[in-house]
C-alpha cells in the first residue's frame, strides 16, 4: 500500500527525516518531561525546537513574543490580582486573566516585576491607567493563552508515553489496533 509522504514546514531539511546522534531530538530524550515543559513555558516554542521542529519552534517564538511586545508597548502588563476573597478587590476574572497572562513565561515574569518590586523595577512600559492599557492587556492574554496551547501540544505530540521525537504522535497512531 502506498503511504502518503509525511511532510512538514521543515520537511525540506535532512534533519526532519533522520535523527542523527547528537541531534535535537536525542538531546530532548535526555531532558526530563517537566524540564522540557518548564523551558517551553519560559521560551515559547522550545518544546518544538528541541524535538526537531526548529523552524516551527522559531515561528511560535516570533509570533508569540511579537504579540506580547505589541501588548507591552500598548501599556499592557501582567497585574497581580487580589487572591483573598475577604478583600474588596477580589475578582475571579482578574485571577483567571493573571494565570493566562503568566503563561507568557519569561516576558510575563519581566512584566510582573513592577507589581512586586515597585515602578523602579519596570523594564517594559508600565502604566495601567493609560487609555491603551486594556487593549495591551488583551494582547498579553492572547499570547499567554496561545503559549499554553503550544505547551499542551508539545506534551501531546512529543512527551506523552515517553516518545521524545517528532514522529512520536504518528508512531502512536500506527501502534493502535
Amino acid at each position, binding site marked *: 500500500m502506498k503511504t502518503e509522504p509525511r511532510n512538514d514546514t521543515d520537511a525540506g531539511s535532512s534533519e526532519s527525516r533522520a535523527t542523527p546522534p547528537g541531534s535535537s531530538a536525542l538531546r530532548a530524550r535526555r531532558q526530563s518531561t517537566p524540564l522540557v515543559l518548564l523551558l517551553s513555558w519560559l521560551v515559547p516554542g522550545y518544546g518544538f525546537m528541541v524535538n526537531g521542529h526548529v523552524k516551527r519552534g522559531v515561528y*511560535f517564538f516570533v509570533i508569540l513574543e511579537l504579540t506580547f511586545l505589541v501588548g507591552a508597548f500598548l501599556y499592557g502588563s501582567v497585574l497581580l490580582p487580589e487572591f483573598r476573597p475577604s478583600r474588596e478587590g477580589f475578582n475571579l476574572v482578574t485571577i483567571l486573566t493573571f494565570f493566562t497572562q503568566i503563561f507568557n513565561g519569561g516576558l510575563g515574569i519581566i512584566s510582573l516585576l513592577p507589581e512586586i518590586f515597585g515602578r523602579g523595577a519596570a523594564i517594559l512600559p508600565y502604566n495601567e491607567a493609560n487609555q491603551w492599557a486594556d487593549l495591551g492587556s488583551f494582547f498579553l492574554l*492572547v499570547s499567554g493563552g496561545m503559549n499554553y496551547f503550544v505547551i499542551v501540544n508539545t506534551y501531546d505530540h512529543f512527551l506523552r508515553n515517553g516518545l521524545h521525537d517528532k514522529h512520536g504522535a504518528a508512531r502512536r497512531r500506527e501502534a493502535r489496533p
Partner: protein
Amino acid sequence: MIGYAYVGSLFFLTFVVCTVYSLAREVNVTSLRLARETGRRAAQLLGLLAALAVVVYFLSKI
C-alpha cells in the same frame, strides 16, 4: 483613533490565534496546506465574531 486600533487588533489577533493553532495541531503537513487551513480558520473565526457583533448591536438597541 482607539476604535480603529481595536478593529486592527481583531484582525491581527485572529491571525495569531489561527496561525498558532494550525502550526501546533497539524505537525506533519505541507506549508501550502497549513496556509490554507490557517486562512479557513481565520475566515470562520472572523465570521463568527461578525455575527456576534451584529447580535450584540441589536441587543444594545432593546
